[in-house]
């Protein structure tokens, strides 16, 4: 398939693997955090780790929009669907994430709540138009990639004068999260968690550009390579990060030049700025309250803000006991370090958010990689 197969070519992968083996200096480790779940997914789905030398390690970061949403916000979404009886529109993965008491939107739907899985924000607008007597709420989540479509839907709702449509806004910002990880005690004290470089999420940078990472790379002296989501992209970006580390450089480099520019998509940034503003603080699952890390709807669009339209309880829910999602999201622990991994927490019956989304680190480990883990009392099957 054109524009896909080219980025999965085995001969090119072998060439890149050879270059990485030659350039990765023996005697030192290369600990590279792929921020985004899209990269985690590509690494596992194509077996990229198999092609790496033993001193190149991927650390799975918090870049899965489903995984980072705190339980309290999912409780709020359930509240909208069940107490306020709105038609709640949400993206697919979000439906299975456990809220308090292991409820989920999928379970709420089974119990009679009106929850619709949508493929785009336009679907939510259509549902609002088709149900003029019902309140329709778009449960908007995601990083900078999914923010412009939400902004466009809000503007369209305003233009059409829809009175039964609003957005429950949970959009979060990538650069703030990366900064938070580097400043966390585990990473600051690098004897505990070493992160030498970052692979930056390409879809995010297709909107915001590569420039927002420049101050970060300079201050924290860590290379950032904006990487595409195909396996060859990940490998090439890994080689670029290794070269920077070998040279003692810490720059922002752009592997995904076929899409990403330094400035990003000005038009998309414009529509986001028009509709959203920074929240002073937002709670992330795994990272806690992070300043200037999320967006809220501007006062001009207050009529379309579900948080203003409906009374929503303050978020007090707590993470499930023993669940290591918070540490896993910070790169401080691996999924297999969690007592619950495969022990009650599986994709069929997830306890933590990292096991829900196919892009979550635990789900990727379980789905694609668990044969690498020795089964208790026996050798690994592979």
């Amino acid at each position, binding site marked *: 398939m054109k524009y896909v197969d080219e980025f999965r070519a*085995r001969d090119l*992968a*072998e060439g890149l693997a050879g270059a990485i083996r030659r350039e990765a200096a023996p005697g030192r480790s290369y600990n590279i955090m792929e921020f985004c779940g899209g990269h985690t997914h590509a690494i596992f789905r*194509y*077996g990229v780790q198999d092609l790496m030398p033993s001193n190149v390690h991927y650390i799975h970061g918090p870049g899965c929009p489903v995984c980072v949403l705190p339980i309290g916000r999912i409780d709020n979404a359930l509240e909208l669907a069940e107490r306020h009886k709105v038609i709640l529109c949400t993206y697919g993965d979000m*439906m299975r994430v456990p809220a308090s008491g292991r409820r989920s939107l999928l379970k709420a739907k089974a119990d009679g709540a009106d929850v619709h899985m949508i493929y785009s924000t336009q679907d939510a607008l259509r549902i609002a138009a088709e149900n003029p007597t019902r309140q329709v709420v778009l449960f908007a989540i*995601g990083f900078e990639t999914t923010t412009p479509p939400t902004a466009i839907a809000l503007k369209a709702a305003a233009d059409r004068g829809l009175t039964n449509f609003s957005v429950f806004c949970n959009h979060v910002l990538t650069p703030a999260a990366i900064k938070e990880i580097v400043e966390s005690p585990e990473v600051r004290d690098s004897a505990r968690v070493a992160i030498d470089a970052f692979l930056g999420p390409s879809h995010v940078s297709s909107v915001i550009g590569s420039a927002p990472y420049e101050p970060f790379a300079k201050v924290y002296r860590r290379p950032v390579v904006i990487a595409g989501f195909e396996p060859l992209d990940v490998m090439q970006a890994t080689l670029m990060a290794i070269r920077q580390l070998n040279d003692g450089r810490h720059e922002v480099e752009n592997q995904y030049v076929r899409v990403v520019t330094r400035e990003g998509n000005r038009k998309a940034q414009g529509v986001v700025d028009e509709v959203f503003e920074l929240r002073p603080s937002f709670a992330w699952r795994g990272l806690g309250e992070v300043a200037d890390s999320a967006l809220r709807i501007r006062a001009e669009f207050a009529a379309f803000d579900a948080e203003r339209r409906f009374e929503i309880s303050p978020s007090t829910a707590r993470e499930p006991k023993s669940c290591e999602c918070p540490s896993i999201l910070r790169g401080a622990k691996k999924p297999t370090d969690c007592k619950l991994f495969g022990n009650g927490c599986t994709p069929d019956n997830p306890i933590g958010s990292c096991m829900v989304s196919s892009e979550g680190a635990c789900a990727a480990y379980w789905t694609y990689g*668990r044969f690498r883990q020795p089964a208790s009392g*026996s050798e690994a099957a592979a």
Partner: protein
Amino acid sequence: MTAHDARFSAAGAPLTGAVDMTHGSGGRATAELVRSLFLKHFDNPLLRAGNDGACFQPPAGRLVMSTDAHVVSPLFFPGGDIGALAVHGTINDIAMAGARPLYLSAAFILEQGFPLAELERVVVSMAAAASAAGVPIVTGDTKVVERGKGDGVFITTTGIGVVPDGVEVSGDRARPGDVILVSGPIGDHGVAILSKRENLAFEVEICSDSAALHRLVASMVEAVPEIRVLRDPTRGGLATTLNEIAQQSRVGMRLEEAAIPVNEGVRAACELLGLDPLYIANEGKLIAICPPDVAARLLAVMRAHPLGLGSAVIGEVVGDPNAFVQMRTVFGGSRIVDWLNGEQLPRIC
């Protein structure tokens, strides 16, 4: 609308009106529906006898019986409809025992208000599928549920068939060293349904592969009676079906991603939505597992049949107490191919 408003066809005129509760009452309206719709289109001597059951002489040999309930939305989709699907699905379940299907039954659950003209379209399609397959529908039932308690029409079909002597096909017979084959490109049915259900417009229309596979199976078991396993990878797709077989046989499997046929349109749709074709449903494909020394012969026989033109060897059975299905990726790495967890959901970004 009452039963009396529903106009029953005479001499080939299409039905008008809608399904009414009285159509399921067992009274005159039911009888009229059966006569003017089901008998008219499914017509055969056993059905025409009008008894509660079909009475026939059992053939010699081992019998296979299978039943399958069909619920699909939308009822009509590119490449098929619920009627043809209900016939193909049960014929295939019988065929996957290596058997020759003999007869089908059909039970309809109709929703009050369902247009009779649409029901007739379904029944005509079913009749055509059964006739083309040479497997008559010899008995059936009709019930009506109140509006809102159904999805137009649900159809349950049951089939009965006979296994030829010398054929031993079962999901627990895969052995290390065996070869895994698939009869053609995977994922067409699931993507065809998805494209209509979610109103996703793709540049190329993807048609369901819905088909009756019993004649393909007949040629396979005749030429290669050593076949150990046959299975049609319907819900859950190729990946889930291979996991089922691996569990039943307590073996592992190693697949070659590059060898698994997937049509370009299906690949493109899956890429777009973040879905994996390995988990997408099929309705006209089968998986065969056979000893290695007969694999080339089996592949040739499969490719010689119109429904097996795209057949391919996709992997081998290996010893593995964990019963993992693994795959060498097109990229040269390896990964596990797990059971489908819940439902495949499109990714967010």
